[in-house]
């Protein structure tokens, strides 16, 4: 999962949860033993440190190894100092981390820690953070940050108030904060995707509205009736159902706030699951289905089947978030790179809204801090000071550059204007095994860091992929040709510029376990999962009757209460941001 994928996926804590459970079911996971115990014994001697260490104020200290548990499955367990980056950081601080990633069910694992009151030194509880806080497993960081965290203060500075818990203390550092300038990613995080051959045949029209998009697909299918094509598919499997229920929000021109849309003037949050916009979106799918253009199996297929369909060349269009379909898009991309004649099967993102004049919001806006995820030091930690010093040292400009760009001359170059870039050779060299051994993988996510849309002080992008120079190098001739047709250099230039939203994203608001908010979400999910398929698959004349039925059920929920709660959260966040 890439960085963005991580952020988005975690939006739906319960869904992640269910995913984890599916993983349990599917693998009947045997908890792996914690790997070869090769934590190096402290020798007491300190190695000569690198130049960067001279900036350290503390005298050289003995080497220590701390344990860290990461609630997001991802990499192999291991020591950070076995990677190039981790070794450099160890030379600077003398601190090594032994990383352990979750296997199987997160809640079970965290629950066991809580029950035993025995934690690793550092904990990244991901979706289970509320339970960890309730259990009092994190130590307050305020004093530590005050004393040892100049860089932490610089990076999180303006958000420190947002990070405070109810008792006014800071217990964890959110996973990433916006620093310096905001640069949007070169590819939109979401969109209505369409096969490039469809655009080519239509002469590269500018598509702005849902109606135009549907028209485009219809026309293509009608001309190619005998090819057994599918107009649109939709992802509905389990917790990923939001790929089908979120579009109304985007079609109205709002960014991904989860269950609500937020008005930037009044900061009112409104749900849309029972609104006119949702009706309109489902009616469109209903018509599409009646015309034989919608893949009915969308409602029974699982995620793998969905990805398989996207790579089958038969599907003309779909809506989804990029991180969810990355696998499929990469397969098509690789195929087209080897054989340019397959380029027409690649998908192109379009900024589609209901109305022509609505600016879209598919690019995530500069926002606040995601405060329901983070990294904290536990009550079992041996030496919190060393840990916070390590975090602080990570957040220096040089180390942030190191963690995403690597080492100058080895994994990136600087041109005479001071712009960072990578040569083709370097791009080719940095594959998955290299990312692992160099440490890009361990240090790409879930540490205190600048977020992906930040820039470094010298104006270069923090994230390699966001650097325009690097992005241009990844494009094929066909890519450049199609972007030229639309008069843009990056895909995101097709989309409207994001409007800053200091609370963003609303899905990141921490909800208490077993609270009315959480119950509303669970019940709403269940209702939409039941009624949306009915609404789409029914005959068009019965659509209104089924909608009535759905409204009757939906009316039983305390939607007003949920909206009130969300609005309060939004306003509180905005207020803190304006302080």
């Amino acid at each position, binding site marked *: 999962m890439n960085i963005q994928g991580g952020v988005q996926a975690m939006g739906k804590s*319960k869904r992640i*949860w*269910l995913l984890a*459970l*599916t993983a349990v*079911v*599917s693998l*009947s996971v045997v908890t792996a033993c914690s790997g070869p115990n090769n934590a190096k014994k402290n020798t007491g001697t300190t190695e000569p440190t690198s130049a960067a260490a001279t900036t350290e104020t503390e005298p050289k200290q003995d080497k220590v190894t701390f344990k860290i548990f990461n609630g997001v499955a991802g990499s192999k367990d291991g020591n950070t100092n076995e990677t190039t980056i981790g070794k450099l950081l160890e030379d600077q601080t003398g601190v090594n981390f032994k990383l352990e990633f979750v296997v199987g069910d997160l*809640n079970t694992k965290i*629950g066991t820690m*809580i*029950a035993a*009151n025995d934690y690793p030194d550092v904990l990244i509880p991901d979706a289970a953070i509320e*339970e960890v806080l*309730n*259990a*009092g*497993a994190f130590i307050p960081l305020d004093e530590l940050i005050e004393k040892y965290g100049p860089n932490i203060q610089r990076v999180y500075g303006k958000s420190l108030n947002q990070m405070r818990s109810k008792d006014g203390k800071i217990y964890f550092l959110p996973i990433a904060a916006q620093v310096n300038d905001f640069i949007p990613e070169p590819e939109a995080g979401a969109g209505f995707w369409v096969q490039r051959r469809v655009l080519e045949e239509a002469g590269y029209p500018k598509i702005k509205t849902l109606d135009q998009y549907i028209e485009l697909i219809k026309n293509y299918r009608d001309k190619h009736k005998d090819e057994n094509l599918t107009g649109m598919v939709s992802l*509905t*499997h389990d917790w990923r*159902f939001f790929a089908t229920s979120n579009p109304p929000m985007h079609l109205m021109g709002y960014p991904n706030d989860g269950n609500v849309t937020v008005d930037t003037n009044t900061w009112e949050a409104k749900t849309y699951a029972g609104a006119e916009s949702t009706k309109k979106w489902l009616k469109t799918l209903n018509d599409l289905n009646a015309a*034989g253009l919608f893949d*009915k*199996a969308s*409602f*029974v*297929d*699982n995620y*793998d*089947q969905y990805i398989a369909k996207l790579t089958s060349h038969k599907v003309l269009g779909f809506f989804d978030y990029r991180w969810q379909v990355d696998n499929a898009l990469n397969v098509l991309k690789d195929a087209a790179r080897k054989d340019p004649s397959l380029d027409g099967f690649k998908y192109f993102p379009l900024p589609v809204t209901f109305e022509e004049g609505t600016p879209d919001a598919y690019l995530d806006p500069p926002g606040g801090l995601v405060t329901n995820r983070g990294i904290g030091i536990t009550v079992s930690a041996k030496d919190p000071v060393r840990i916070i010093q390590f975090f602080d040292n990570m957040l220096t400009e040089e180390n942030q550059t190191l963690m995403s760009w690597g080492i100058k001359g080895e994994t990136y170059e600087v041109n005479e204007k001071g712009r960072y870039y990578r040569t083709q050779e370097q791009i080719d060299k940095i594959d998955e095994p290299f990312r692992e051994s160099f440490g890009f993988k361990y240090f790409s996510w879930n540490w205190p860091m600048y977020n992906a849309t930040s820039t470094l002080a010298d104006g270069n992008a923090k994230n390699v992929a966001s650097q325009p120079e690097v992005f241009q190098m990844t494009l094929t001739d066909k890519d450049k040709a199609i972007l030229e047709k639309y008069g843009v250099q990056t895909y995101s230039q097709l989309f409207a510029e994001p409007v800053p939203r200091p609370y963003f994203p609303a899905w990141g608001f921490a909800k208490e*376990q*077993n609270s009315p908010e*959480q*119950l509303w979400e*669970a019940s709403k999910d*269940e209702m*939409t*999962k*039941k009624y*949306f*398929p*009915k609404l789409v*698959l029914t005959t068009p004349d019965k659509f209104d009757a089924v909608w009535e039925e759905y409204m009757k059920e939906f009316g039983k929920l305390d939607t007003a209460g949920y909206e009130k709660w969300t609005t309060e959260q939004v306003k509180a966040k905005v207020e803190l941001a304006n302080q």
Partner: protein
Amino acid sequence: MRLFFKKLGQQRALAVMSVPFLIWLFVFKYLPLWGWSIAFQDYKPARKFMEQTWIGFEHFKFLFGDDRFLRVLRNTLAMSSINLFFGFVTAITLALLLNEIRNIAFKRVVQTVSYLPHFISWVVAASIIQTTLSPDGTINQLLVGLGFLDRGNEILFLGIPEYFWTIFGASSVWKDIGWNTIVYLAAMTTIDPTQYEAAEIDGANRFKKMIYVTLPGIKSVVIVLLIMNIGYLLESGFEPQYLLGNGMNVDYSENIDIFVLKYGIAQSNFSLSIAAGMFKTVVSFILLFMANNAAKRMGEARLY
């Protein structure tokens, strides 16, 4: 009493050997019962036992007051009854038929093929079932090819709630039929061959031998298994329903286990999960006793 100790002395090796198992039983089967107290609390993790708030039967009231719970209870009972009935009937039938096959090679092949699905996990099995039943899957293609359906009108089998129980039952039978026959085939080998010879002399044909010799021969095994399975009536399984269920068939596919997952564990409402679990255990216990008693009355083999 003296007799007891005398026997114990005589069999002390046996007694000593069984001690570890008694400890195991106590630690893993009886100690956890303590956890049932959580069902009567407003349980919060990480708090000590004395710090929990007691709320009595609140969670049980919530469960039985909820339409959804009654619905999942119905689904659970329906699906496990289907499983129980068809599982028995098909497995016994197959065992009887296999027993009649004289060609050993063919018998081995049939047996192997029929019990292979038991060894694939439900995740894989569910994928196979989903693909087979999808609009462009084998079954729809067959129906279209035979002219029962028009192209474009393929049936979305997993999208029709009323079909779910049938699909579930058929899938379970497919997956476990071969495995379930093993115990009956084993039971059949214990039947004295002289009975068949006697039957043959009396003029019984193969079918009659099946009815009057083989079936009564495995009767005790069947009854014991039946009693045990009745105890599991509220355990209709979790994986097939979870993996084959979707938003469209949720009214028929959701069972108690999935309900507990959704409204208990996923919401960190552990008390509710435990209340539901307790309900299941108590009902299973009653069912088991009833079945055993019935068997006793009829003078049949029984569990205890």
